[in-house]
């Protein structure tokens, strides 16, 4: 019985490995469920893992290998630099190999350009774009007068740069009084000791740090902050990643570290919470990527509705497709730029409150939702002019 | 009394080529013995085989112990000293450091002190802190001899010590050998130039075709000229 192969291309070694490994677990777990439900229109869904080493060129080589191995859908998330390369690769590949088209599902690389100037018909993004997340953060900051001096620190690559730009712009627009006392870019996944940067943040007298750092870069940043006793507010996207919660607990930053994601396990509906517990029990990690769940769900129904696993058909179907998301809300894949929109949650991290089920990394601390942003309120315009086959 | 060094039916090979075909000889304590022979007959090889630098086949006893098959450093520690023919000084080390390495353990007082060496070859003292590598050919030769003596051996095997030495120096080395012997150290001398060999040796061996072909005192040697022209001259 033939199978549908999903090529998973993400860092499985190097500084990004911790993130990539967990991502892989997600998709393997999801594939099992799909197959338990009878697979994609009778065919088994099989996940093939490839190590991108967080490197665009390597990722392209791996993508070629994935395709050679029979994958017609590839999925990737770390990081935007890689995503850009893959999107470009897939586009070229499809135009050169008509009839052998390949789909690219991006579950986490959130640099806006991927759904704007660099947008591609074959690329579908299931995570909210950087601008969406920054918009949410800046809106939240609107009514937080205590935030006066903000320090921006980001990774020196496409996503880090655009996130930093977005932050500057949106804060200017929504909180002109906020003063940006520092704006740092550091090498991607190469820094082992952030103390020098922390020293700088302290010296700047910032009361708030905004960062898009991920993988070891957020964990180490928080850790160094803890060591130096940095007592500022944090607005992040990936503080929930490996090592993050531990570091936050260490520095005793109760309810001062925030992140913005598409789920809040402690208020999520039954089904979601059940899945969460199962995942945690099985893999010893939190279910970070509900977007991955959405991705596979939509794939599944697209296949069901078209009755075929042909990428071309699936792509057509997905355009503008709507459906229920992991967290019970409504989700939609916008036709113009293949950006997925879903409810988002701005959360903060602190000691478990009564009734909260899930803590992180055994710290006894967990996430609390500070506000839900409905899918409709997250919609941002796009400049994408997509060439459709 | 039993010999200090006793070699019986010693064979040695370089890869496939069979160099020594059963060498037999012995050296008593405090004795100066010369090993003569044409180039390439295997004198150096004999010494190397004794030192374990070339795998020896046969019996090699030193101070009553069978040392065939031991590692060179073990053999050296038993009190066997070796002065190679191709002046193996340690080029990057200074003269003094070379001499220091001669000693087997950092603090060991033997028959020879660095002062003795400097007394015998003042030249070495002058150059004590220059890298041995840049020393003149002759100086290197002196250094190698002294370095070995610093290890306080009971028997030194010296391979062509006068090679590249000026005539005056040759005499100096002659005297040194005498002094060495006078301190009760036995000597196995390999030489091209018969002059000093005949002057200082108690006994002589002549090698030919990888064997010992003559054994005797200097007198015996001088007595029978045939050995000389058959085995030494060309």
């Amino acid at each position, binding site marked *: 019985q033939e199978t549908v192969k999903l090529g998973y291309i993400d860092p499985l070694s190097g500084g990004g490995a911790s993130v990539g490994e967990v991502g892989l677990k997600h998709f393997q777990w999801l594939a099992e469920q799909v197959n338990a439900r009878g697979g994609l229109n009778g065919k088994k869904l099989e996940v093939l893992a490839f190590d991108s080493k967080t490197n665009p060129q390597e990722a392209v080589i791996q993508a070629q290998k994935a395709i050679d191995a029979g994958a017609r859908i590839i999925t990737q998330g770390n990081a935007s630099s890689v995503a850009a390369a893959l999107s470009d690769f897939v586009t070229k590949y499809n135009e050169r190999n008509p009839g052998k088209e390949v789909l690219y599902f991006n579950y986490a690389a959130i640099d806006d350009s991927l759904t704007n100037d660099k947008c591609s018909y074959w690329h579908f993004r299931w995570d909210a774009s950087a601008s969406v997340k920054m918009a949410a953060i800046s809106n939240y900051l609107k009514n937080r007068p205590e935030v006066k001096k903000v320090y921006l620190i980001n990774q020196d690559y496409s996503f880090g740069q655009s996130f930093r730009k977005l932050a500057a712009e949106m804060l200017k627009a929504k909180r002109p009084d906020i003063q940006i006392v520092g704006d740092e870019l550091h090498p991607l996944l190469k820094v082992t000791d952030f103390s020098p940067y922390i020293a700088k943040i302290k010296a700047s007298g910032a009361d708030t740090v905004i960062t898009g750092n991920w993988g070891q870069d957020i964990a180490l940043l928080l850790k160094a902050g803890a060591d130096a006793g940095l007592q500022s507010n944090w607005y992040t996207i990936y503080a929930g990643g490996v090592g993050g919660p531990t570091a936050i607990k260490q520095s005793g930053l109760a309810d001062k570290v925030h992140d913005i994601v598409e789920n809040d396990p402690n208020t999520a509906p039954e089904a979601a919470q059940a899945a969460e517990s199962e995942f945690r029990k099985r893999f010893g990690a939190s279910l970070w990527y509900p977007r991955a769940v959405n991705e596979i769900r939509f794939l599944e129904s697209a296949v069901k509705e078209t009755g075929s696993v042909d990428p071309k058909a699936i792509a057509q179907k997905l355009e503008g497709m709507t459906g229920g998301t992991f967290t019970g809300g409504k989700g939609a894949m916008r036709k113009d730029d293949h950006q997925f929109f879903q409810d988002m949650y701005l959360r903060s991290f602190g000691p478990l409150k009564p009734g909260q089920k899930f803590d992180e990394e055994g710290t006894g601390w967990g996430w609390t939702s500070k506000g839900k942003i409905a899918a409709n309120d997250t919609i941002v315009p796009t400049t994408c002019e997509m060439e459709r086959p | 009394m039993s010999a200090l060094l006793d070699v019986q039916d010693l064979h040695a090979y370089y890869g496939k080529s069979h160099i020594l075909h059963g060498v037999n000889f012995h050296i008593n304590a405090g004795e100066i013995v010369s090993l003569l022979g*044409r*180039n*390439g007959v295997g004198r150096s090889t004999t010494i190397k085989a004794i030192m374990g630098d070339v795998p020896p086949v046969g019996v090699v006893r030193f101070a009553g112990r069978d040392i065939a098959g031991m590692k060179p450093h073990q053999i050296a520690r038993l009190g066997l000293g070796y002065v190679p*023919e*191709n002046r193996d000084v340690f080029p990057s080390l200074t003269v003094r450091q070379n001499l220091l390495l001669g000693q087997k353990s950092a603090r060991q007082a033997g028959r020879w002190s660095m002062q003795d060496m400097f007394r015998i070859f003042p*030249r070495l003292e*002058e*150059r004590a802190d*220059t890298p041995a590598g*840049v*020393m*003149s*050919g*002759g*100086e290197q*030769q*002196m250094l190698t001899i002294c370095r070995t003596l610093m290890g306080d051996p009971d028997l030194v095997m010296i391979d*062509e010590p006068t*090679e*590249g*030495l*000026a*005539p*005056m*120096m*040759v*005499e100096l080395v002659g005297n040194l050998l005498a002094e060495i012997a006078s301190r009760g150290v036995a000597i196995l001398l390999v030489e*091209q130039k018969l*002059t000093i060999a005949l002057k200082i040796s108690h006994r002589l061996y002549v090698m030919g075709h990888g064997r010992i072909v003559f054994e005797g005192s200097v007198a015996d040697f001088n007595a029978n000229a045939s050995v000389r022209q058959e085995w030494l*001259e*060309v």
Partner: protein
Amino acid sequence: MNPAIALRDVRKSFGPTEIIRGLNLTVNRGERHAVIGPNGAGKSTMFHLISGRLQASSGVIELKGEDITGLRPYEINRRGLSRSFQITNIFPKLSVYENLRCAVLWSLGYRYAFWRFVDRLKDANERAEEVLEMIGLTARRDTPAGVLAYADQRALEIGVTIAGGADVIMLDEPTAGMSHAETEQAVALIRKVSEGRTLIMVEHDMGVVFGLADRISVLVYGQIIASDTPQAIRANPAVREAYLGEEAPA
């Protein structure tokens, strides 16, 4: 016509110690000139200074009337001076033949050419063969030089030195460590190759020195104490006292 080599008040010190202390020497064209002297007198150092391996601290060195003080070894070599080394100094991994062929390339004007094949260079190959013949290593033609027996390596050392056809040749203890037989061959070879050239040679074997040299200079403590014909040198008491000692030259 100016001498093949002239040193004027040349000095060389290493750190505090002065090794060559105001050395003056003149070697006429076409003569076989031997330099003798105690160990450490500075003979090799003098060679190094002339051939450019070391830079003189002061003084002038002339080659065929041309000032070569401070030039790099290869520049001096290109001006027609070639030297051998006391401690054998050849290309161990290259075959005997390659050693010789490399030695002739420059003098035949092939410089750094990377657009022509060595095997097609008729003159270079002929010259190499010729020298190979001369030093009697034809049998070992393709052996890597490193595995040759000591005496053969010395022969090759000389071969590499003369292959380029330089007209001033300097040999540092060419026969050291050779047996009598080998020494005789070497002497013959040296005599042959130095025909019509200038030869400067350091030697401790008095047989060789007095057999070959037209003139002999005695270098003691960095100075030439005598420079004269063999007879005169042999007679010279200072030399006997400083160098020859008792041993009468053969």
